């Protein structure tokens, strides 16, 4: 029986695309470069979806405090 830890799952997603939903109506999609215990994340080639408006960002450090949901391998639909 193997246990899956939340941060272990996130560790497996490193260097792949992740889809992140925030507590408010914002969404992010990007290549996960790294993260820490607070779910702060370093993302590259990011698409930000804010109020239906898409914008592209090269490299960001996303504050983990407002993150609601993370989908490894997911894309903004």
């Amino acid at each position: 029986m193997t246990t899956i830890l939340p941060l272990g799952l996130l560790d497996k997603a490193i260097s792949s695309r992740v889809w992140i939903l925030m507590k408010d109506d914002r969404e992010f999609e990007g290549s996960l470069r790294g993260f820490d215990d607070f779910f702060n994340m370093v993302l590259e080639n990011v698409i930000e979806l804010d109020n239906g408006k898409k914008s592209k960002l090269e490299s960001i450090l996303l504050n983990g405090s407002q993150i609601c949901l993370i989908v490894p391998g997911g894309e903004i639909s």
Partner: protein
Amino acid sequence: MSHEKRTSADFFKQVFGRTVTVKLHNRTEYIGVLAALDGNMNIVLEQCEEYLESKLINKYGQILLRGNNVLYISAKFNQTKQQDVEI
């Protein structure tokens, strides 16, 4: 290089002295030279411009942003590298 793991601590080290965009939860954006940054994401920016919905609102010489308001810090590493080469 581009597939190395890069933690938030590494990001902190790399962004010092670079021009960054800081976006807050209230959708305000601050573009300026990053002078200081800590683990709470408290940020000191210099030569800072304040934007709301892509419109320039104000300019400041130096500001301190409290970390709890920060949504993300965005940097363009490739662009700054080119500038480094020129110097």
